[in-house]
């Protein structure tokens, strides 16, 4: 069974979750952990109509692959498949899907979590919320939330 990083890509088209799960699955695998990030309709109380993702593509894909490789080293035997979408997404769309499959459940769960946590802090991707009122704003996770200033 091939293990490690099977697929780690920045994509422009909608993500096919089932296809990614199928790609990570294998008869030798007993556990598949999937994380799906989706665009939600409210942030800090403002009504969102869509989310625009921008990436430093050459570096983002490289960094995503580096994170997946770290997960492979930490959780040997894991099969990793992941995509992060960029462009203008609408409510409910999947922005990121991470699939980690393993013979056992603990490394499958841990590997998926490792990747999403690292992705959030290290992969050069940005998002701009489009609000129902027509306003748009880049999201800065390091800024103090409006409600907590």
């Amino acid at each position, binding site marked *: 069974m091939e293990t490690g990083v099977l697929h780690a890509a920045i994509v422009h088209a909608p993500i096919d979750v089932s296809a990614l799960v199928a790609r990570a699955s294998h008869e030798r695998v007993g556990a598949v952990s999937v994380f799906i990030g989706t665009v939600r309709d409210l942030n800090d109380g403002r009504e969102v109509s869509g989310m625009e993702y921008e990436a430093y593509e050459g570096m*983002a894909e*490289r960094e995503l692959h580096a994170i997946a490789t770290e997960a492979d080293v930490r959780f040997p035997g894991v099969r990793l498949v992941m995509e992060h979408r960029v462009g203008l997404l609408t409510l409910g769309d999947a*922005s990121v899907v991470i699939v980690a499959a393993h013979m056992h459940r603990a490394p499958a769960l841990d590997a998926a979590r490792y990747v999403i946590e690292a*992705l*959030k802090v290290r*992969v*050069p991707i*940005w998002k701009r919320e489009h609000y129902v009122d027509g306003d748009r704003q*880049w999201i800065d996770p390091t800024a103090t939330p409006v409600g907590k200033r």
Partner: protein
Amino acid sequence: MSLPVLLFASYADAFGARTVQVPVTAPCAVLDIVAALRVMPGGDRLPAEPLVAVNRTWVEASALVVVGDEIAIIPPVAGG
């Protein structure tokens, strides 16, 4: 000399461009580029110590850059 610097997202909006030519003198560190950027129009919206990547790898502010390097100033990331 001047070096091309890549900008993204809110930083590209601040400078009104996705690439800017930054005037510097050799030898040149990342912090010199940032300092030069901060006095350019729109540079007031750049923090004193932004994230920087050279040749698509994260680097410290003290890292040296040379002509031909791909230099990118990275806004706070927000993927996922």
